[in-house]
Each structure stands twice: as C-alpha cells, then as structure tokens.
C-alpha cells in the first residue's frame, strides 16, 4: 500500500515544497512486511518493498498491517486518524533519529495521510 505514496507525494507541489529540506530513508513496518521510502528534497525517490537484509534507515515506523489499513480509510475512526493518535494508543512505534521526523512533522503527517483516497 505504501507504493502509492510516491506518485501522490511527488505530484503535490505544496507538499514537496514543505519538505524541501527532507533527506531521509524511512523504514515502515506493516506487521511483518517492510517498506523502505527514500526521501530527497521533499520528493520520494523510491519505495521498495522488503524483505531486506540489514536495512539501514534514518528512522522507522512500525504498526500492525490492520492499523495501517484503518489509518488509510477515507474517513478513519477516532484514534486512527493521525500518526500521533496511533502513538497515543500505543499502536505505532517510532524509532531511530527522530530529528528529521519532528523538525518536519507537518510534512511527514501529510505524507502518510496521502495513503487515504484522494479528496479524503
């Protein structure tokens, strides 16, 4: 499901501008499945699906696949509508160098919100 982020993010010029200082490799865990998202100057350069052998990353986000599915719904239920809502409910784990994540928090929240159907 994370593959679709590449086109959606790169087509959003305002979002790319917001993330213009973002260079990071983000590992996303959806249950046992891993994705590696490579960000350069606010664009997503690549989305690769695992498995990987010893994947390096700037930071990593892990949640159950079902939780990502609920997060990605057009109208998510309370508690599934924001990365920090998942964090508060202990459904999301964030690890690694969090500086680029927190310094660009509006950007990364919008990137993951792009999992939702367009116009949602």
């Amino acid at each position: 499901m994370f593959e679709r982020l590449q086109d959606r993010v790169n087509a959003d010029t305002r979002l790319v501008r917001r993330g213009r200082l973002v260079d990071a490799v983000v590992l996303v865990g959806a249950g046992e499945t891993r994705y590696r998202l490579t960000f350069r100057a606010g664009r997503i350069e690549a989305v690769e699906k695992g498995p990987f052998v010893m994947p390096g990353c700037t930071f990593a986000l892990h949640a159950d696949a079902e939780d990502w599915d609920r997060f990605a719904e057009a109208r998510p239920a309370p508690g599934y509508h924001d990365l920090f809502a998942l964090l508060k409910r202990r459904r999301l784990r964030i690890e690694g160098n969090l500086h680029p994540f927190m310094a660009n928090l509006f950007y990364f929240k919008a990137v993951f919100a792009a999992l939702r159907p367009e116009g949602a």
Partner: protein
Amino acid sequence: MAARIEPVSGHYMHLEIEGRPHRVYFEEAGEGIPLVCLHTAGADGRQYRAILNDPEITRHFRVIAYDMPWHGKSSPPAGWQEEDYALTSRAYVNQVLAVCEALDLDRPVVMGCSIGGRIVLHLAEEYADRFRALIGLQSSAHVDPYYDLDWLHRPDVHGEVCAAVVSGLVAPASPEADRWETLWHYCQGGPGIFKGDLHFYKIDGDIRDRLHRIDPARCPIHLLTGEYDYSCAPEDTAEVARGIGGGVEPVTMKDMGHFPMSENPDAFRRYLLPVLDAIRARG
C-alpha cells in the same frame, strides 16, 4: 465596502498574580452572567472568537477570554529571560482567581478547554463556592506522556512543531479555515510555552486522587468532550465523572476534536447553548 467591526473589545489589565506584576490582555463582549473562558495549552484567547461573536450567548452572558501570561498579547512577567516557564496547578488556580477578582466578577461561570478543562476540576475541588458553574471542555484527570516533550522547545526544531503535534487533535470533519486558524495560534506560541503548559497537563495537574472531593451540588459541573480527541478521549472524561461519584453527566460531541470552540464553532454551539440555558435557569 465598509469594514464589519466585531462587537468585541480588547483591553490590557495590570494586576498582581502571586505577588508579581502582570500585564494581561483580555477580550470581552456581552452583558449578564460573567463567563470566563480559558484557552488550551500553547494557544490564546482567540480560540473563543466565535463565542465572543455569538449574539445568542452575549445577550445573557458577559463573555471574557483572556490570554494567560506568556501567551497571545499578554506579557511574560519581567525577568522572564532568566527562567523556564512551567505551569503548576497552584499558579494556574491563583491566576484564574486573580483575574476574576481583578475584574470584580460576581460568581462567574468558568469554561476551560484542555488544560482549562483540567483547572476547572481544581477550582471545583478548592473554590466551588466562588463560581456559579464550571464547564470543562476536553476534561481529563491526567494524561500520560505519549511523546517526548523536549521536542517542543529546541533551537534546532522550529516552533511550528507545536502546531504539527496538535494537528491530529482537530477532528477530520472540522472546517478547513477553522482548523488552520486553530493551528496558526499554535504556530505563534512563544518558545517553550506549549511545553511549559504541558508540565501542568501531564505532570503537576494530576487530580485523580482528589476527584472524590468535588461536590457538584456546591457548584454544577458540565463536561463536554469531542470524540476525535485522543489527548483527552471521551473515556477519560467518563473517568472524571466516575471519580467525582455522581452528579455529572459527560456529553460526547460527535465529529469534534480537542478544540471545539475554535475548530468547529457552529457544531460546538449546539452543545454549549443547552448548557448555558441550564446555568441561566438555575440563576
């Protein structure tokens, strides 16, 4: 085209809070029962712009929304550059009492949101007889930290992180203009101020073990909570009501988040007006 001027006036008052001189900004509108409005952590009184402009409310209530010291157009106390701001329960209670006394308010209603929704519980416990009623929006007895608060005040992270942290507390259905107005207030907060408010919200202001001392018969308490708020979820407010032990019936607001008066004023007034009617009916 002539400008439309709102029926809201703003003033600066000078008063002492805990023995220190303060310059505090407040806005007011209307006549009648004083209704003091307390904003959320890291924001300011502009969150109550719609309440101040609501003729159905200002016909019967003198609505007063002040910016807490360090917030909005209120100044920090002289010497602020030498201290780290960290709000405590005692300082917050004393601040509300000082403002009510300085404005010579007769048994006002106090309505607070988030940290304001917490402090009304402290006021109910300690000073019930001084208030006509208390309204808690997004009231909880405590909140466990769920992210590292140090990110909110670092020279290498812009202060807009405060707005980004709270952005998910606005419900998905709230109007875009009001959502981003609400977040703009957070973008404008002074360095370290949101974090300093959260010292009260997440650490010092825990009132779980004192809820049973609150007696709604002495001062009625109304609790309204948005369903999309994960900082203070409806179950947290239900826990408050259970802790008080009866006499409080929390209301869950559909499609509403953590900032009801600011993120979706039209939807919020439908929940607030019956509460204000009930307060007026009691006299």
